[in-house]
């Protein structure tokens, strides 16, 4: 075995054949990681990406701030008499709306990331297959949490007071993050299904705008026409927004929480397997 020649580049040290050989002899192979451990490792990858490309936090900081300010002052006076009174009603709803809107970036990043060579490597590892996607969404859950905290802070500055206290607010955020985690499987599906980033974006908008606006986020649905009420009252966004609103106000909206979790379960059950089917075929 010849070692590397002594003509080494200045910037690149030579490969050491001896130490390489010693490394390759390596002992026992560790057992394959558990599903949880693999998912958490991929979650760690998502964190590292945030660390190296912090600009991607823009959509969970600037965007939510803009949403709170815009809608509070746009609708506040007309709908509730004053922005200060409106925000008491609006904040939990706009929180739900913004975070659910942010979930659509998941589809875009899955779509661009999946084309990269590293996915070939991930796919040749003997690990629980969905862990790649779960890891993604775990990283996104952190983003959703950041967005929630940012919005709450802005809301408090504008005069929002949560009667539910710290516990109520925490419960609301946890519910929202869990729901968003589940909801994101729609986007992982689209991210894998559609060919380009642009089409992912386009489809996401088509889904997300009607779904979030046709809800009880901005106004009480009582003034809406009957057919629209039928839709709005059964929309998952309405359930989550009512649940979060209730939790933060210090109530225990058991039915709404149950509905929200039910929808979350449904999203995972339906879109999780479809996502994995697409992932395995890519």
């Amino acid at each position, binding site marked *: 075995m010849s070692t590397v020649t002594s003509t080494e580049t200045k910037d690149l040290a030579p490969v*050491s054949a001896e130490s*390489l050989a010693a*490394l390759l002899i*390596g002992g026992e192979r560790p057992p394959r990681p558990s599903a949880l451990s693999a998912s958490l490792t991929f979650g760690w990858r998502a964190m590292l990406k945030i660390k190296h490309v912090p600009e991607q936090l823009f959509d969970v900081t600037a965007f939510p701030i803009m949403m709170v300010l815009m809608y509070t002052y746009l609708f506040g006076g007309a709908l509730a008499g004053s922005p200060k009174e409106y925000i008491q009603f609006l904040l939990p709803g706009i929180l739900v709306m913004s975070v659910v809107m942010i979930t659509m970036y998941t589809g875009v990043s899955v779509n661009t990331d999946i084309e990269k060579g590293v996915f070939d*490597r991930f796919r040749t590892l003997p690990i629980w297959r969905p862990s790649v996607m779960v890891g993604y969404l775990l990283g996104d859950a952190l983003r959703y949490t950041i967005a929630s905290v940012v919005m709450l802070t802005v809301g408090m500055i504008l005069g929002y007071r949560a009667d539910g206290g710290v516990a109520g607010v925490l419960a609301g955020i946890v519910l929202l993050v869990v729901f968003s985690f589940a909801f994101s499987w729609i986007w992982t599906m689209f991210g894998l299904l559609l060919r380009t980033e642009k089409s992912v974006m386009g489809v996401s908008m088509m889904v997300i705008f009607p779904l979030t606006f046709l809800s009880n986020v901005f106004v009480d649905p009582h003034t809406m026409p009957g057919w629209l009420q039928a839709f709005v009252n059964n929309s998952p966004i309405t359930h989550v927004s009512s649940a979060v609103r209730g939790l933060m106000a210090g109530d225990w909206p058991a039915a709404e929480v149950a509905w929200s979790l039910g929808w979350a379960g449904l999203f995972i059950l339906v879109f999780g397997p479809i996502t994995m089917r697409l992932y395995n075929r890519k």
Partner: protein
Amino acid sequence: MSQHTTGLAIETAGLVKTFGDTRAVDGVDLAVPTGTVYGLLGPNGAGKTTTVKMLATLLRPDDGEAHVFGHDVVREADEVRARVSLTGQYASVDEDLTGAENLILLGRLLGQAKKAARERSAQLLEAFGLTDAAGKQVKHYSGGMRRRIDIAASILNTPDLLFLDEPTTGLDPRSRNQVWDIVRAVVAQGTTVLLTTQYLDEADQLASRIAVIDRGKVIAEGTKGELKASVGAGSVHLRLRDAGQRPEAAEVLRRALDAQVQLEPDPVALTARVGAAASDTAAEQAARALGELARTGITVDNFSLGQPSLDEVFLALTGHDTQDSAKQDTAEQGNRKSEAVA
């Protein structure tokens, strides 16, 4: 490590993959012995990468069978995955992460504990001369460094079988030599390597057996010696002073060497293949040819004796000659059958 009864790391039979109307891989049979470097040689689009992807469980074959260490790549994909690793044509590491993070990430995914993964990462970076770049994002690495981190990631777990898909494409000669050294070190420790390449040179340097693949089919297979015998031991490249003398020069070479002569696009250049079947060496034959040319009064400006290029291998194996089927039989005999192609 893995003792398989047949001693084969890879065994495929009639492997087929179609994309739309294209049969990217069209009935490939391979038998790769353990502990060796096996070269898959072919031009772009020949089906090399598709074959590797099927063997690495990334693509599902449309037809045929493939076994890696006796495990079916479709039905026992996880068994296969536990034994192989892949260095793809494009960097198979996460470019946003640093070199160290990449190795730790993969170590963890292979089941290593945090501390073990960190140590292994540091040792590998050291062995690959990347310690200084450990904390840099891979996207800032040079081509040679990327290849190194890529291969380091592939041998984290000392795989039984390593797929290297065109590992030196786009590298400068020095980096290429370093990659070759790494491959030799890896094989010396008992890992089987399936190497795809467009360069005969590379296959020659590393592989003990080579399959030449074209349009999804294996068109020749054998040891290096057998394969070379089928295309001639080398090529004489000539540049003449006067383009007008080229036909005459071609005729002289044909007589002197009993070889195929090819006229190059460059009007003063021509290439002759020197056969290995003759009793004298390629260099002696070339010297004789030069002497003949000088006697005929043809001025040679420039002369070189080299290995047959992939083009020439292809010409010899697929050539526009009629006897396509006869081609494969020539593997043992050197090529005398064919007349000038030009």
